[in-house]
């Protein structure tokens, strides 16, 4: 009972808080001639109307669905009292189908836009309002979004979109479509200039999906958000497939199967609070350096556990996340796409306070089709653990390109026995997709530090931020093996037809299954004791902070899409 009362108490308080934070005008209206509402009163009235969106009934319905309103979301996302709203007075301009009627006009229309601060740093935000025409996109709605995007690019600050929209405003016809295209164009223009983040907090269907798809990161809310080109009904009529909204385009589908979304959160509050945390990792624009925050974790901390982490048997698995967690500041790692292509791990962390992008092969997870990680995989030895495959290449490539675009140094942990063989991969175009990762690492000019923890075999060795692709500092742990392939395969080729395979294998292992062949050629800069890795990386990043490197002039590069 006490708990409930407490919650009720703060609910009441909240209403006061939200109102006051959006009220901008002086409270004393000037009086005009009688019989006519004063302008001041009209301003006040419109502002009040803008605050309640589609009205209390629709707000209750929105809450009933387990979703917050557009304004509540903005209030949670931004620092208290920091939101500066634009275009609260904008209304749609449609005059067909009775839309011109007063009761069909809502100040601000179906989106809330403006700028504010997250932990003191500037961000532009739009938040679609499902309570107004289901958040549908009118010309005015699109125009509001475009306005803040344009300004974000002028100023150099990220854009966060909180998507909750039924789709196009059908009554407006082509105007709505034009609106989408205007946004798409800005998404593309802003790409690589300011970070763009989409948080899908409700439906997002049809053409609307392409805006999140063009942004740098797409996050979703579990159970209450959907992304698809066409809904279950259309799917049924066209392909005769029976599929639910959740199966077709829910958070699970997009974070584990399609790879469209980068992460999913439990509910609106969880998502918005996590987004604040995530935002702290990002630079404001491509002109800003990777942010540095106050750090309590000593940069020269040794990590003794790493000395015993890599198993002696080269086929045994270990968890690359253990490596990452123990090396980065405060074990704080914001993993991107944790449930998709788990054989590669990517995400943001900090080293001595500075944001870095981490890419690591994951020996714990099998490549290819296998999804569910089996417990006790360390008991089973499998050949193709942590191979690069189509999905992991694409996942890694996109992440590396984001880091490069926004000056975030890249730290790569390598344990890769090669690219995944098989018809499924070849027919799927592993050549084309694997090239993306190679391309991304090669083109990147940010500081690149690479640590080979164990295997670096074949072409995959080249790909994973090798010295040859302009890696700035490349380390090998004593357990590293840099070779064209594993001993068994190599011996079958080198000593074809010879009898004593075991001896040959031993000879090969002696020669190649160690870091020396790479070290004597200078392909790794040093062989380091694993426990000193954190110290080394922090020191190197300090030095590389002033790195300047440019690629040859080009209109734009031609990445193998």
């Amino acid at each position, binding site marked *: 009972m006490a*708990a409930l009362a*407490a*919650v009720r*108490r*703060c*609910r009441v*308080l*909240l209403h006061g*808080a939200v109102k006051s934070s959006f009220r901008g005008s002086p409270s004393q209206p000037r009086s005009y001639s009688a019989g006519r509402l004063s302008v001041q009163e009209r301003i006040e009235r419109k502002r009040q109307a803008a605050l309640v969106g589609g009205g209390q009934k629709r707000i209750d319905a929105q*809450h009933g669905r*387990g*979703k*917050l309103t557009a304004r509540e979301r903005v*209030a*949670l996302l931004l620092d*208290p009292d*920091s939101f500066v709203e634009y275009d609260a007075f904008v209304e749609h301009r449609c005059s067909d189908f009775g839309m011109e009627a007063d009761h069909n006009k809502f100040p601000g229309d179906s989106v809330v836009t403006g700028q504010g*601060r997250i*932990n*003191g*740093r*500037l961000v532009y935000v739009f938040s679609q309002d499902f309570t107004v025409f289901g958040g549908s996109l009118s010309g005015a709605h699109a125009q509001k979004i475009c306005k803040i995007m344009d300004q974000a690019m002028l*100023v150099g600050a990220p854009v966060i979109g909180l998507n909750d929209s039924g789709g196009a405003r059908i009554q407006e016809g082509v105007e709505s479509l034009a609106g989408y295209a205007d946004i798409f164009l800005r998404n593309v223009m802003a790409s690589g200039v300011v970070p763009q983040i989409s948080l899908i907090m409700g439906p997002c269907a049809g053409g609307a999906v392409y805006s999140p798809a063009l942004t740098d990161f797409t996050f979703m809310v579990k*159970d209450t958000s959907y992304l698809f080109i066409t809904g279950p009904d259309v799917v049924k009529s066209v392909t005769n497939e029976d599929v639910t909204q959740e199966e077709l385009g829910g958070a699970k589908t997009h974070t584990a199967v399609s790879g469209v979304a980068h992460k999913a959160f*439990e*509910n*609106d*509050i*969880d998502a918005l*609070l*996590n987004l604040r*945390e*995530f935002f702290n990792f990002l630079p*404001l624009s491509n*002109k800003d350096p990777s*942010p*540095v*925050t*106050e*750090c*309590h*974790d000593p940069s020269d901390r040794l*990590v*003794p*556990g*790493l*000395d*015993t*982490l890599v198993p*002696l048997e080269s086929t045994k698995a270990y*968890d690359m996340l*253990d490596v990452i*967690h*123990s090396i980065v500041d*405060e*074990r704080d790692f914001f993993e991107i796409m944790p449930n998709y292509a788990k054989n590669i791990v990517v995400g943001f962390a900090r080293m001595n*306070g500075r944001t870095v992008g981490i890419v690591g092969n994951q020996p714990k997870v099998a490549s290819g089709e296998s999804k569910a990680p089996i*417990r*006790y995989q360390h*008991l089973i030895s499998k050949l193709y653990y942590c191979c690069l495959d189509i999905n992991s290449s694409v996942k890694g490539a996109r992440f590396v390109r984001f880091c490069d675009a926004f000056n975030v140094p890249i730290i790569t942990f390598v344990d890769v026995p090669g690219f995944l063989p098989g018809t499924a991969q070849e027919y799927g175009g592993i050549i084309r997709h694997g090239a993306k990762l190679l391309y991304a690492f090669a083109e990147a000019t940010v500081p690149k530090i690479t640590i080979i923890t164990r295997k670096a075999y074949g072409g995959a060795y080249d790909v994973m931020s090798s010295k040859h692709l302009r890696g700035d500092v490349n380390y090998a742990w004593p357990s590293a093996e840099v070779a064209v392939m594993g001993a068994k395969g190599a011996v079958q080729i080198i000593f074809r037809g010879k009898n004593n395979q075991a001896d040959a294998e031993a000879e090969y292992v002696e020669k190649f299954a160690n870091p020396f062949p790479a070290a004597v050629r200078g392909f790794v800069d040093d062989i380091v004791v694993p426990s000193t890795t954190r110290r080394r990386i922090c020191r190197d990043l300090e030095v590389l902070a002033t790195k300047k490197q440019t690629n040859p002039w080009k209109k734009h590069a031609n990445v193998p899409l």
Partner: protein
Amino acid sequence: YLIDHAAFRSRCCIIVSRAQYSTVYDHNEKVMKTCKKMGIKTVAVHSDVDANAVHVKMADEAVCVGPAPTSKSYLNMDAIMNAIRQTGAQAVHPGYGFLSENKEFAKRLAAEGVSFIGPDTHAIQAMGDKIESKLIAKAAKVNTIPGFDGVVKDADEAVRIANEIGYPVMIKASAGGGGKGMRIAWNDEETREGFRFSSQEAASSFGDDRLLIEKFIDNPRHIEIQVLADKHGNALWLNERECSIQRRNQKVVEEAPSTFLDPETRRAMGEQAVSLAKAVNYSSAGTVEFLVDSRKNFYFLEMNTRLQVEHPITECITGLDLVQQMIRIAKGFPLQHTQAEIPINGWAIESRVYAEDPYKSFGLPSIGRLSQYQEPLNLHNVRVDSGIEEGSDISIYYDPMISKLVTYGATRAEALKKMEDALDNYVIRGVTHNIPLLREIIVHPRFISGDISTKFLPEVYPEGFKGHQLTATGRKELLATAASLFVAAQLRAQKFLGDLRVSNTQQERRSWELCVELEKGVHMLGVSRSGATYTVEIDGDKLEVSSDWNLASPLLTVTLNGIHRTLQCLSRNAAGEISLQYLGTTFKLRVLSKLAAALSVHMPEKVPEDTSSILRSPMPGTVVAVSVKAGDTVAEGQEICVIEAMKMQNSMTAAKTAKVRSVHCKPGETVGEGDLLVELE
């Protein structure tokens, strides 16, 4: 160690057979430290999975004796004998468990002319056999347990014997030490079940399937006497150890001396122990275990012919290094001390820190990798004997002991206070551990007053251990710490170093209104800051919380209204969830701004899974037997399958009467904690 030093310079090599507690825990480090002090070179033997273990690194040489299962490595005599030959070792210290009490092993060593640091074969044989040992004890005028009887061939015979003795009876493997394989039966049916389990365990752990059934003494204390005897017929008793705090007949907390013994009883027990040692011509260190009833009657239980896990507390109060004494004795030196020279100086407590979940039957094994590990060695009068370090893997193959934590003080109260501090400062991450239970035991009024028995745990926690129960003050301390930590993290998140292109125009906040959830209670808190001190208002009370607010350290040392406390922050996330270890127990809190808390009423409830129809493995282990198949109807409490982990067999039973929908495991399979075993309809 002057004399010893000279005596052992002779390039004597010691093979230390891997102890029972293998990967997880080992005394071997202790043995090696002593050897090093004495100038003796050491060789460690290890299994495949232990190649990186601490004892292997500490040794001068190491030899791998086989794969992980103990029967193929640490119990593999041939491999160990080979290792001895290969390294030219002159002596073997057997550690504890495994081959330490194996007479065959001692014989083979003798045949090779290698000394065995421990008693001779005859004594091991005599005391290793529960039945023979009792006969000898009787003859030596040592009090023995009434109703004692013999070897058992089948379940029917077990029932007949049990009835002769009268219930309750205790069943265990003849060759097993401690509580391994021990079961208590109150009726015929339980006797049959106990017979089946004990004989299986006896076969798998000791390779000797003889069993023992004897009268079970209700409500006893477990008190043991440490003895030391040389090869010249001299023997000493080094006082007692009280080991009554047990779970499933395995010791959890031990202390020396016991609060219960008066000098007369102590002397009587000591003298009987010594006379038993002399009766078997015992040499080396040994332990005579007694059960002591409430009237201070004591009964001989068994004699352990090896160094025991809990020996450090005896070392603490007597000042003797038992390993050093064992090595001296093995070399034929006479005892250095007389009985009158054995003191009781101060008080020592030992807590066995296990990798296990204390909320399940006071401790079911857990596994994992120690992602962070920090022993409380910064504290004075704290000793930690462990075989692991940060990064060690705790596997399913061996006993789950992490370390033995010993604290010492001039008085018992001092030693206990030190234990509280030590447990609070002990950082273990990556595996579930029993510190919550240990921390509660040592502050329990019954324990503090010395009112304990081997039934302490089930009596004090009849519903199972539920963790520390917060007092009103404790709750406030916890809430205030969580809220302050939350604010400290929020403030730091705004501290960007270097030049901000777009400047921050906001004023730094000085006060916060927060909503903190703890154990389903919701509290509104006001927090205000001045420097590193936060003033937290909870329900009209004000708490001052100060700390250095180091957000990277696993330890969180705070001063709460002037009281110093060490908490641990186990996790903290963006959604405001904070796990704090407070007084040993982990509490989950959620801190939200008032706004977020108010809005959270709209968040949908996620439906948890129905657990009554699903049987999940409570721990990682191996499936030994599956007793049902899909379509069978099972009764509530009926055995569904048996999981073996860390040498313990655990019977999994149905939570309700239902039909079996599907079976997801088969014998021989390895399962993880939480893995689905069987689904009921």
